[in-house]
């Protein structure tokens, strides 16, 4: 017998509202239909009344977790449109902050994931490690999450030599502490039984449905927008993390290993950090059309902006990674047990308020 069960918008595992209509046949999910739109805020439309400099602060608020990367993408798009040459130091600092952001986002997710299948103490442990990355941001930029360091033309904040040494020491500690929980999270029997083989997304499906980020890389595609070399990534040594199983576990492993890559990228960026200006001066007004993509913790983030020669942009279009990952999610759910739905939904790292903007 078929039953339709509502999942969400309020659900213990979901920090944000998404509603899924689950068509269930004897505890097995047959079909899932999403229902979005609970937290639409109309941020794109704000471009009518806020100029492009103020928009940087607004796009930062699209996502509460990867705010800095939104601003980075927006600034890069405007810079490309106005042909601003960004100083090298700014590029490297942008990479540093993006990667610290990625560490904090992934640790947040890993904690929530552990909590999703009831491993409360691991959740606490991971969030405790995460506090270090929050401190890094607060001490260098002045805020814990919405750090507002990117501006059109460069960055606003600089780091001192002492801070550099301290950041490197903290990054080492983060890495060491994450390594300590690696075995617990990745080889534990309970964890594996809740994740392995659950919510499989095959390589073909991932490609056809346009999955991005850890969802895509967990299904065997070595695709990461950081490979395009935006900001200073082109000058750093970077290999995307790839897993081949396509299940919840693979996505978890990808994120786990990306924490190490991020630590490594922060070190590289700081080792190569050149001196010089923080931000370029410019006089132009944005005109023309530009699109730009960068890699967020959740996947590829896409910005399209159109300027009309005034200080107000004509259009800002944001496609966030969760938006792209919802069709793959709907392909993962059919066939799974009802009890596994929360963990599978979590495994795409849903960020609903950025999806709806």
């Amino acid at each position, binding site marked *: 017998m078929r039953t339709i069960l509502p999942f969400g918008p309020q659900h213990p595992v979901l920090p944000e509202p998404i509603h899924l209509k689950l068509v269930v046949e004897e505890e097995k999910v047959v079909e899932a239909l999403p229902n979005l739109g609970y937290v639409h805020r109309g941020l794109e439309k704000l471009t009518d009344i*806020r100029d492009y*400099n*103020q*928009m*940087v*602060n*607004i796009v930062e*608020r699209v996502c509460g977790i990867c705010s800095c990367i939104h601003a980075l993408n927006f600034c890069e798009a405007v810079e490309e449109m106005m042909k601003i040459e960004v100083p090298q130091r700014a590029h490297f600092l942008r990479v540093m902050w993006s990667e610290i952001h990625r560490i904090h986002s992934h640790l947040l997710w890993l904690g929530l994931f552990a909590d999703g299948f009831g491993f409360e*103490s*691991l959740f606490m*442990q991971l969030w*405790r490690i995460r506090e270090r990355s929050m*401190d890094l941001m*607060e*001490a*260098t*930029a*002045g*805020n814990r999450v*919405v750090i*507002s360091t990117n501006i059109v033309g460069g960055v*606003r*904040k600089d780091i001192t030599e002492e801070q550099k040494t301290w950041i490197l020491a903290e990054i080492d500690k983060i890495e060491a502490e994450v390594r*300590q*929980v690696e*075995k*617990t999270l990745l080889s*534990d029997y309970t964890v594996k039984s809740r994740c392995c083989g659950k919510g499989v997304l095959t390589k073909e499906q991932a490609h056809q449905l346009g999955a991005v980020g850890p969802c895509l890389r967990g299904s065997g595609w070595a695709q990461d927008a950081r490979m395009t070399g935006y900001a200073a990534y082109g000058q750093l040594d970077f290999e995307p993390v790839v897993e081949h199983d396509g299940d919840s576990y693979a996505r978890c492993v990808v994120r786990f290993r990306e924490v190490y890559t991020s630590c490594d990228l922060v070190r590289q960026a700081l080792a190569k950090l050149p001196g010089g200006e923080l931000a370029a001066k410019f006089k132009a007004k944005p005109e023309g059309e530009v699109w730009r993509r960068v890699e967020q913790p959740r996947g590829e983030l896409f910005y399209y902006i159109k300027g009309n020669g005034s200080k107000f942009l004509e259009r800002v279009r944001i496609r966030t990674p969760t938006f792209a990952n919802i069709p793959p999610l709907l392909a993962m759910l059919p066939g799974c047990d009802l009890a596994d739905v929360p963990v599978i939904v979590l495994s795409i790292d849903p960020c609903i308020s950025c999806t709806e903007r």
Partner: protein
Amino acid sequence: MFEMTRNVLKNLMGKYSTRLYPFDTREPFERFRGTLDINVEECIFCSTCAKKCPSQCITVDVKNRTWTCDSFACVYCAVCVESCPTQCMSMYPVTKPAAGEKSLIFYQGAAKIKKPKAEKPA
């Protein structure tokens, strides 16, 4: 499962990772953007801050020489602080205390007695 044992013991034996918050607070970071304030004596009521503010929470009344900021709409981005020509605004690394009701930060500047030329800040 034994990998966590060390951690568990450390958590049991070691000192707390959390603080007893309102009684035991942490030294804030120097760059922390906590509260916003203005030295109204130096303000020339040019409205730059009001124009640059992304949340548009500052109102500058040039005629009556008042400066108002809705501190509950402010997002503490420090754009205004950086753009002020006389550098009369500052941010302090103090957490904004909890409030029972919404209030505005309101300042009334001294009346313009001297001629505009003498008004220029040092």
